[in-house]
C-alpha cells in the first residue's frame, strides 16, 4: 500500500514538474536590450506568456536568428528590419503570413492599411509593426530661446540657425560614424531635401550614385562640414554604450540632432528634461517640393518553422490590439499606430498632428529601402567621406561599384 502511495505521489510530483517545464510560452528574440522592460509590460497580458531574449549585439543577433529560423526551435516571434532586410527571409519561406491579423484590424478601422506596405511581398503581409519612427530634428529649446531662434520653415531659415549657433560656439548638428550605420542618416536626409525621386530610384538601382544629383548632395554636405556645422564624426552616439552626442545636447553644446523619434528616451536618459526638447521636420532645400520625411518601420515577425508558431500568432494578434499598444506607447513614448491609442507626450502628439495633417511624402529609410548587400557596405564608404570630406568623387564611384555588383544579379 505504501509503495502504491509513493508511486502515486511521485507521479503527481513528476506531473507537476512537467507542467512547469512544458508550460506554454513563446520565445521572443530581439536586439533592443534597452526596450526589454517595455516589451515585458506591453506583453504582460498576452494570451500565451512571452519570454523575451534580448541580444546586446545586432550582428550576433542576426546570425543567431538566421541560424535558428530553419529549425523548429526557432523563436516564436522576433524583431527584424522591414523592406529589403526581410525579403530574403520571406523568399526562403522562413516567416509566417500574418495577412489575416492585419485584415481584422484594418477592417475594423484600427490601422491604416498603408502601414503594412513595408512588410508586404507578393500581396501577403509577413510582419506586424513594432514601431513607426519619424526621422525629425530634435532641438534644445533652451539653446534656441537663448539665441532667439525658432524652428525653421524654409531651408534659408535653417541655414541662418546653423550660422547663429556656430557663431555662438554651439555645434549646430550631431553627425557620427560611430557604430557604422549612423553614417547613412545625413546621406538620405540631404538627398531627399534636394531630390526625393532620385533617392527612391537610387535605392532600387534605377539611378546611379555617380549621377549629378548625388554629386550636388555631397557638395552641400561637404559645405556644411567645412563650415563646422557638424560634430566631429567620431562622437559617440550611444551605439556602443557611451553617448557624448546626447550629453553635449543636454549641456547645450550641441543644438540639434537629426534622428528617429525613438531617440527621445535616450535624450531624457542623458539628463534632459522632456520639456526642454523640441522637434521639427527638416524643410526642403527647394521650396516648391512636397514636404517629406524619412520613416522607419520596425517589424515583428513570426517564425514559419517554429514549434511555437500557433501561439506566436495569437500573441502577434494581441500585440496589435489597443491594450498592448497603449502599454507600449506609454512605456516608450513612440508614435501611436493603433487609432485607439493616445500618445504619451505632447512632443509626439504635436508631431503626429503636423505629419498627419501636412500631406507629407513619407519616404523609407535607407537601411530598409535598399538591399542590405549595398546598405551594409555603403555605410562604410559614406563614413569614410564623413571623416575625409574631400573624397566625395571616390565615394560615389565606390558606392556605384557596390550597386553595380548587386543589381547585376538581382531585379529591382
Amino acid at each position: 500500500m505504501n509503495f502504491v502511495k509513493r508511486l502515486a505521489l511521485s507521479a503527481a510530483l513528476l506531473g507537476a514538474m512537467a507542467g512547469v517545464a512544458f508550460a506554454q510560452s513563446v520565445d521572443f528574440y530581439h536586439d533592443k536590450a534597452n526596450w526589454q522592460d517595455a516589451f515585458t509590460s506591453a506583453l504582460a497580458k498576452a494570451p500565451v506568456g512571452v519570454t523575451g531574449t534580448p541580444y546586446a549585439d545586432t550582428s550576433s543577433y542576426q546570425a543567431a536568428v538566421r541560424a535558428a529560423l530553419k529549425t523548429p526551435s526557432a523563436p516564436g516571434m522576433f524583431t527584424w528590419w522591414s523592406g529589403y532586410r526581410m525579403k530574403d527571409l520571406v523568399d526562403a519561406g522562413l516567416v509566417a503570413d500574418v495577412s489575416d491579423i492585419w485584415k481584422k484590424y484594418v477592417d475594423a478601422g484600427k490601422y491604416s492599411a498603408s502601414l503594412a506596405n513595408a512588410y508586404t511581398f507578393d500581396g501577403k503581409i509577413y510582419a506586424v509593426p513594432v514601431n513607426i519612427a519619424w526621422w525629425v530634428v530634435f532641438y534644445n529649446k533652451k539653446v534656441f530661446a537663448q539665441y532667439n531662434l525658432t524652428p525653421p520653415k524654409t531651408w534659408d531659415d535653417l541655414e541662418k540657425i546653423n550660422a547663429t549657433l556656430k557663431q555662438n560656439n554651439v555645434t549646430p548638428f550631431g553627425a557620427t560614424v560611430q557604430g557604422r550605420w549612423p553614417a547613412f542618416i545625413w546621406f538620405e536626409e540631404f538627398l531627399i531635401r534636394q531630390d526625393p525621386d532620385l533617392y527612391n530610384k537610387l535605392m532600387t538601382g534605377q539611378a546611379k550614385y555617380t549621377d549629378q544629383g548625388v554629386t550636388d548632395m555631397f557638395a552641400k554636405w561637404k559645405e556644411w562640414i567645412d563650415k563646422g556645422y557638424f560634430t566631429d564624426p567620431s562622437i559617440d552616439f550611444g551605439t556602443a554604450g557611451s553617448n557624448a552626442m546626447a550629453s553635449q545636447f543636454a549641456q547645450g553644446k550641441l543644438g540639434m540632432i537629426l534622428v528617429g523619434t525613438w531617440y527621445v528616451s535616450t535624450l531624457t536618459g542623458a539628463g534632459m528634461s522632456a520639456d526642454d526638447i523640441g522637434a521639427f521636420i527638416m524643410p526642403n532645400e527647394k521650396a516648391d517640393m512636397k514636404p517629406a520625411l524619412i520613416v522607419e518601420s520596425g517589424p515583428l515577425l513570426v517564425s514559419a518553422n517554429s514549434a511555437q508558431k500557433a501561439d506566436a500568432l495569437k500573441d502577434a494578434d494581441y500585440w496589435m490590439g489597443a491594450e498592448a499598444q497603449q502599454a507600449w506607447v506609454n512605456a516608450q513614448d513612440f508614435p501611436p499606430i493603433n487609432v485607439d491609442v493616445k500618445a504619451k507626450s505632447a512632443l509626439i502628439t504635436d508631431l503626429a498632428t503636423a505629419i498627419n495633417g501636412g500631406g507629407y511624402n513619407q519616404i523609407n529609410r535607407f537601411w530598409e529601402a535598399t538591399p542590405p548587400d549595398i546598405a551594409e557596405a555603403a555605410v562604410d564608404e559614406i563614413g569614410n567621406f564623413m571623416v575625409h570630406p574631400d573624397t566625395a568623387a571616390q565615394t560615389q564611384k565606390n558606392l556605384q561599384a557596390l550597386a553595380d555588383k548587386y543589381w547585376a544579379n538581382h531585379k529591382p
Partner: protein
Amino acid sequence: MTDATTTTRTLTTARPVARPGNRLLQRAEPYLYVLPAAIFVVAFLLYPMVLTVIRSFTHDDGITAPQFAGLQNFTDLFADPHFLVSLNNTFIWTIAAVVLPVTLGLIFAITLNGVRWSGFFKSIIYLPATISAAAVGILFSFIFGYDNGALNSLLNVFGIHNVRWLFEAPINSYSMIGAYTWQSTGLNMMLFLVGLQGLPQEPLEAAKLDGCTPFGLVWRIIIPMLMPYVVIATLLAVVNGFKVFDQIWVMTQGGPGRSSETLAVTMYREGFIMFNQGYSAAIAVIIALAALIFSYFYLRSVLDQEKQI
C-alpha cells in the same frame, strides 16, 4: 616441493582467468580515458574546421542551400582592395605584437628579476593580462575618445588640438596596438621571469668575476640562455597578432571606411554582417593556414626544448 606446489596453486587460484572480453577491455582502457576529450575535439574543432574548408568553396548566405563556387571566393579575395588593406593591417599588427609586448616583457623581466619590492611592479604590469580584450577595448575607447577622451584632454592642457586617435588611418591601428601592448606585456614578462629563475647561476657568476658589464651580461649571457623562451613568446605573439579581433571590433569595428580591419575582422564582417559565409570561410582558411604554419614552428620549438630537459 609441497610448499612450492601449494604456493603455485594458491597464486593460480587467486588470479582470475583472463577471458578474451577482459583482455579487450584492458587494451581499450587507455583509449576510453581519452575518448571524452577526443569527442570534444572532433565535435567542436575538427568537424567545424572541415565544414569551414568545404564552405570556403561555396556561395552560402546561411539561409538558402549553398552553391559550389570552386576557387572563386579565393580569387575574389585577392582582387578585393579591402582584403588587401586588411592583410596589410594584419601584417602591421603581427609585427607590432611581436616587437612591442615581447621586447617590453623581456626588458621588464630582466629589470625586475631579483630586485627588492619587485613583486609590486610585477603585479602592476601583469594585472592588465587578467582583463578581457573587449574590456581593454572599452577602457581605451575612453582614453582615445575625440571630444572627452583622457588623452586629448591631457593634450589640450599643453595647447595641442584634439587628435582622432581611432578615426584616422593608420593612427587608429597604432592606437589599438598600444592598447594591445598594454595588455599583453605582462604575460610575456611572466614567461621570461620563469625562464630567468631557471637559469644556472654559474655562467652568470663567472661572467661577473671576469668583469662583464651589466649590459654585456644581459646581451651576451642572459638573452642567449633565454632564447628558447624568446622563441616561444615570439611565435605565440605572431599567432595572437594574426587572430586579433575583439579589441578592434569594440574600438573601431574596423572603420572608418574599413581602414582598420584585420583578417579576423574582415572574416567576421563578411560572415555575420554581409552574410557572405562562403567568402568569410575562405578568409578563415587563410588565417588558419597562417596560424598553422607558425604553430608548427612553435610546437617544434617546445618539443625540442622538452627533449633538452
